[in-house]
C-alpha cells in the first residue's frame, strides 16, 4: 500500500526529530535504525535525511555510508535553545566519550575538573587499589581531556621542526616523539607527545590549548592545524598486564613488535569490525603501558573491550589520584604543578627553560632547522641553566625521627601526591628552591618529591632540607638528591614485554 508523502508541518517535525538524533555522543546512525526508532518507513526517512544532508545539517560517514553528525550544524542533537559553536554549548560540563562508563563505576562520587571535563578522581573511596593495580596488574585511565591537534599538509614536518625542540627531520611514520616547545625567549610553553601517523599527518597531544600558537607559527606554510580534542577519546592502559589485555581487546596489531614510543593502527575488539583505533606505547606512569586513541563514536566499544579483556588480569579503572602517584614515582613533570608555562607566567622569574624543568634531553641544538627559542637556548647552553629539576628522597629513619618528636609513627602513608609547593633549603640554611610534587611511595617506602633547586644544589647525592608538616608543626626533613625516575621497571621499555602468563 503506497504511503502518503510527508507533507506540511508533519514533515518538518519529523525532519527536526531526525536531526536531533545526531549528537556528539551518538554521532552516527544507519538509515534502518533511524527509521525504526522514529517509526518511519525507510523510504520516508531516506527522503528526509537526504534533505538534511543536502542542507549540510548532517553528513555521510566515508566508510559505512551511515549518516553522521556534523559539528556545529544548527539543530542537531537536543541542543535546545542555546547555540552551539565548534561543537560546544555554553554552560554545559564537558563529558569525555567514556563518561557513561566511568560514571557508572565511580562509586566514591569523587570527581575533579580537568580542562573543563568532569573526571574521576578515585573510583573507590581511597585510590589505594587503583594505584596498586597500575603497578601490579593494570589500570585503565581516561585521559581524554588532553588537547589534540591534527597537523596535516606538505609542510607538516617543517612546522613541527620549527615549533619543537626535538629534531622532526628524524621523525618516522609509526613513531611517537616526546618533545618540548618554547617561546622565542627559550622559555618552556608545554611538553607533549607527537604521533607521526603518516608522512604528512601528525597528532600533537598537549595539556593546554595551543591551536593559535601552532597556526601562527605555521603562517605561510602549506599546513592545516585542526583541533580534534573533542572528537578523539584517549584511554591509558598501564601496568605489567597491559600487553596481555591490549592484545585481547584489539585486532590487527602486533604488540610483540611494538617498541617503546611506537604507534600502530588496529581495530577495537577481539574480532575485526569494532572501529579503528590508534595505539601508542606511551603513558604517564613509568610502567609498561599503551594509550588508545579512538573516535568518540567507538569510545564505549573500546572501553568495553578493554574491561572485558582485563577481567582475568586484575584490571581496575583508575582515577587521577592514582595517576598522580605513579607519575611522581616515574619522575615525570606536570605542567602548572612542577613548572609554570611561559604562556601564563605573570612574572619573569617563574619562567623556565626545558633544561630547568628537567627536559633538557628534548632540546636538540644540533638539529638543522631553526626552531622557536633556538637562539636563547644556545645562549643557555653556553652559560648553563640557573635551575634544575631534581628528584628528592627522604628516607624512613628521618621520617621516624621527625614524628617521634610528637610520639607518633610517621603519619604519611596513604596520602595522595601533594601539589602544594613546599620550600627546599640548603641543610640548616637558606631556601634554594621548592618541592612541587611529593608523596610517600608505598611501593618504594620512601618519601619522594620533584623539586626545582638552584643548579649548584642539584648534583646527585647533595643533601638538602625539605619542609614537611609533622602534626601541626613544620619541620625540616633531611633529603638527598637522587636519580629520576624513582621507579623504572625494565618492562617499561623491554622489547617484548610479556609477563609470565600460564595457559
Amino acid at each position, binding site marked *: 500500500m503506497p504511503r502518503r508523502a510527508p507533507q506540511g508541518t508533519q514533515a518538518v517535525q519529523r525532519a527536526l526529530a531526525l536531526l536531533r538524533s545526531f549528537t556528539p555522543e551518538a554521532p552516527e546512525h544507519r538509515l534502518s535504525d533511524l527509521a525504526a526508532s522514529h517509526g518511519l518507513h525507510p523510504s520516508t526517512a531516506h527522503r528526509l535525511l537526504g534533505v538534511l544532508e543536502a542542507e549540510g545539517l548532517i553528513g555521510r560517514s566515508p566508510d559505512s555510508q551511515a549518516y553522521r553528525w556534523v559539528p556545529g550544524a544548527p539543530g542537531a542533537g537536543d541542543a535546545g535553545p542555546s547555540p552551539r559553536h565548534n561543537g560546544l554549548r555554553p554552560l554545559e560540563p564537558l563529558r569525555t566519550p567514556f563518561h557513561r562508563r566511568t560514571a557508572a563505576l565511580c562509586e566514591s562520587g569523587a570527581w575533579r575538573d580537568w580542562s573543563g571535563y568532569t573526571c574521576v578522581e578515585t573510583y573507590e573511596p581511597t585510590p589505594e587499589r587503583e594505584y596498586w593495580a597500575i603497578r*601490579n596488574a593494570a589500570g585503565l585511565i581516561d585521559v581524554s581531556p588532553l588537547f589534540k591537534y591534527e597537523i596535516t599538509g606538505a609542510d607538516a614536518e617543517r612546522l613541527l621542526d620549527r615549533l619543537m625542540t626535538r629534531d622532526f627531520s628524524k621523525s618516522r611514520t609509526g613513531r611517537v616523539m616526546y618533545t618540548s616547545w618554547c617561546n622565542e625567549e627559550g622559555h618552556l610553553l608545554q611538553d607533549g607527545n607527537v604521533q607521526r601517523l603518516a608522512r604528512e599527518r601528525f597528532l600533537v597531544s598537549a595539556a593546554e590549548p595551543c591551536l593559535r600558537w601552532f597556526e601562527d607559527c605555521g603562517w605561510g606554510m602549506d599546513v592545516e592545524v585542526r583541533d580534534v580534542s573533542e572528537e578523539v577519546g584517549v584511554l591509558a592502559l598501564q601496568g605489567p598486564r597491559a600487553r*596481555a589485555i591490549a592484545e585481547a581487546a584489539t585486532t590487527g596489531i602486533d604488540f610483540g613488535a611494538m617498541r617503546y614510543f611506537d604507534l600502530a593502527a588496529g581495530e577495537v575488539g577481539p574480532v575485526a569490525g569494532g572501529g579503528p583505533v590508534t595505539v601508542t606505547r606511551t603513558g604517564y606512569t613509568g610502567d609498561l603501558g599503551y594509550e588508545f586513541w579512538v573516535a568518540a563514536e567507538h569510545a564505549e566499544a573500546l572501553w568495553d573491550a578493554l574491561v572485558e579483556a582485563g577481567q582475568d588480569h586484575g584490571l581496575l579503572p583508575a582515577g587521577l589520584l592514582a595517576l598522580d602517584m605513579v607519575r611522581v614515582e616515574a619522575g615525570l613533570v606536570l605542567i602548572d604543578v612542577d613548572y609554570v608555562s611561559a604562556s601564563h607566567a605573570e612574572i619573569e622569574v617563574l619562567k623556565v627553560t626545558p633544561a630547568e624543568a628537567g627536559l633538557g634531553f628534548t632540546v636538540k641544538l644540533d638539529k638543522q632547522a631553526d626552531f622557536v627559542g633556538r637562539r636563547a637556548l644556545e645562549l643557555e647552553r653556553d652559560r648553563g641553566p640557573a635551575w634544575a629539576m631534581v628528584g628528592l628522597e627522604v628516607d624512613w*629513619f628521618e621520617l621516624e625521627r621527625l614524628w617521634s618528636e610528637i610520639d607518633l*609513627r610517621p603519619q604519611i602513608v596513604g596520602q595522595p601526591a601533594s601539589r602544594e609547593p613546599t620550600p627546599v633549603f640548603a641543610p640548616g640554611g637558606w631556601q634554594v628552591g621548592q618541592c612541587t610534587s611529593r608523596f*610517600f611511595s608505598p*611501593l618504594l617506602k620512601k618519601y619522594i618529591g620533584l623539586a626545582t633547586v638552584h643548579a649548584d644544589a642539584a648534583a646527585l647525592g647533595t643533601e638538602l632540607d625539605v619542609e614537611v608538616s609533622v602534626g601541626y608543626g613544620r619541620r625540616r626533613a633531611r633529603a638527598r638528591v637522587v636519580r629520576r625516575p624513582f621507579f623504572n621497571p625494565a618492562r617499561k621499555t623491554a622489547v617484548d614485554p610479556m609477563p609470565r602468563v600460564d*595457559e
Partner: protein
Amino acid sequence: MTDAIVVGAGHNGLVAAAYLARAGLDVVVLESSPEIGGATRSEEAFPGFRFSVFSYLVSLLRPEVIHELDLVRHGLFLVPTASTLNPLPGGDCLFREADPQRTYRHIARHSRRDAEALFEYKLEMRRMGHLMYRLQRAAPDELAAAIGDRVVESAEHLDVEVSAEVADIARYFLDLPPARLRSFVQMLTMSSADFLGQWFESDVLKSALSSSSIIGSMLSPRTPGSAYVLLHHYMGEVDGVYREWGFQKGGTGAVAATIARAARSHGAEIRTQSPVARVLVSDGRAAGVVLANGDELRAAVVMSSAAPQISLGRLLDPGDIPGGAGLVERAARWQSGGCAGKVNLAISGLPRFECMPEPGPHLSGGITIAPGLDYVDRAYDDAKYGGFSERPFIDMIIPSVLDPDMAPPGKHVLSCFVQYAPYELAAGSWDEGQREAFGDAVVRTLAEYAPGIEDQILHRQVLVPPDIEAIAGIPGGNIFHGELRLSQLFLLRPDPAAAAFRTPLPGYYLCGSSTQFGGGISGGPARLAALRVLDDLRTADTAGGGGGETR
C-alpha cells in the same frame, strides 16, 4: 674462615645472617631442607597455581629490618589488604573497610553503639601497638635492667649495659598513664572475649575482632591469655600504620627470597640440604657445628633460628653446659603444639559469597569465617578433645586477586588458614583419610557462605601440623615456635636461662620466633639477636679476648 654460622634459613635465620654479613662477618647459613624460607615459603603446587604454603600475610615485619637491609631494592613488594569481610549465616555479613566512616555504617547495621565504640577501641589499640613498638626495640634483659634501675635502683644481677635508647623506652613504659598500663595488663591476662566485651555488645563484631586472638594459638577467644595474642597482631604495621596487612607479590616465599638476596649481597652464603646434628663445643664455648653427614664447620659464633626443642635440645649435649640438664628438660616441656591447618585451593573462578556475590574490593581483603563467639568456641572444643573442628574457623585471602601472577588468567587461588587442627588426633593419626575429611570440612564450611564453591575447585592442598613440622622444621607445627602466653613471654621466652638471645653456652645464640617478641614474619628477634652478637664481639675485642662474648 667462617665467623658465624646460622642454623635454619627461615626468615629469621636469613635476617640474622644478613645483619652479621652486613657488619663484615663471614656468615654461612645451614638449612636442612632443599628450600629456604621455613614457614615463609611459596610453591607452584599445581601448574600455574602458586601458593604461599603456610604463612600468608605480612604486617609484623619490622620497618628497621626493611630499611636497614634495603629490602625494597631486593624485591619486597607489599600490596595492602585493606578490608575484612565476615560472612554470616543467611546471606548477612559484617564488613570492615579502610574508610572508617563506611565501616561505621556497616557495624551500625548490627549495633550503633558498637559502631561508635569501634573508633575508641581502635584508638586504644593503636596506643597499645605503639607501646609494643617501643618495647620491641629493646632486648628483654636490657629492658628489664633499665626498668629495674628505675624501680629498685639496682639491676646489677642482670649484668647488661643499658643503652640510652633502652633507658628511654623504660622511662616511657614507667611513665605510662595508669589507664594505658591497665589496658596492657588486661591484654596480658584476659580472654579476648572479655577484653572486647569492655567495648562491644554485638556478638558478631566481638567474634570478628577476636579472630586475631586465636590465630596460631590453641586458645579460644574465651581462654584467659588470648587477649595477648590479639595484641601480638595489633603491633604490626605497614609504613607506620598499625594493624595494616600486606600481601607480598609472589607469596610469602618471596619475602624469604628477598631477605636471602639482601644477605647474599653482603656476602652471606646459604647452604640448603645441610642439616645440623649438633653444636660443636670446645673449651666451654661454641666452636661451630657438626653436620648430619659428619662434616665439621668451625666458627666463633653459632646462632640457631630453630625452635627450643631443637636449639636447646637436640643440638646440645647437656653435659657440655652448666645447667644443661635442666635447660634441655625445660625445652622439652615448651608449649608449642600445633593448632592450625592450611587448605590451599585452586579454583576456576572467583567465589560468589551469598552476602556479596559480585566481584569487588571485598575480595582483595581478608575474609573470615567466624560468625559468632559460640561458633569459634565450639570449633575449639573439638580440638580440645583431640579432633579437628567440624565447622572450623577460617581466615582466608584470595592471593590471585592481590597478585594476578599467582594463578592463570581467570582462575584463582584461595588460601585458607584453618583452626582448629591439633597436632595429634585422638582418633588415630593424620592419615590420608583424616586429611581429606579435614579438607572436606573446610570446603563444606565455605560452601555455606559461598554456595557452589565446591564445584569450582580444581586442586586442593591440605596441610596439617605434622606437615608444618616436616616441611618447615617446626616441632609440633606451632607457627609461632611456641604459644604466645605470659608464661612463655619476655624473660621467659624461650627459657629463663636463654631469654635474651644468649644461651648458657658462650658463643651460642638464639634468633628465631621462640625468642622475644615471638612469631610472625617480623625479623625482629633475629635483628636484636644479631645486634647482640655484634655487640658481644665488639666487647670481646676491646677486652682483648679471643672473639666471643664475655659471660
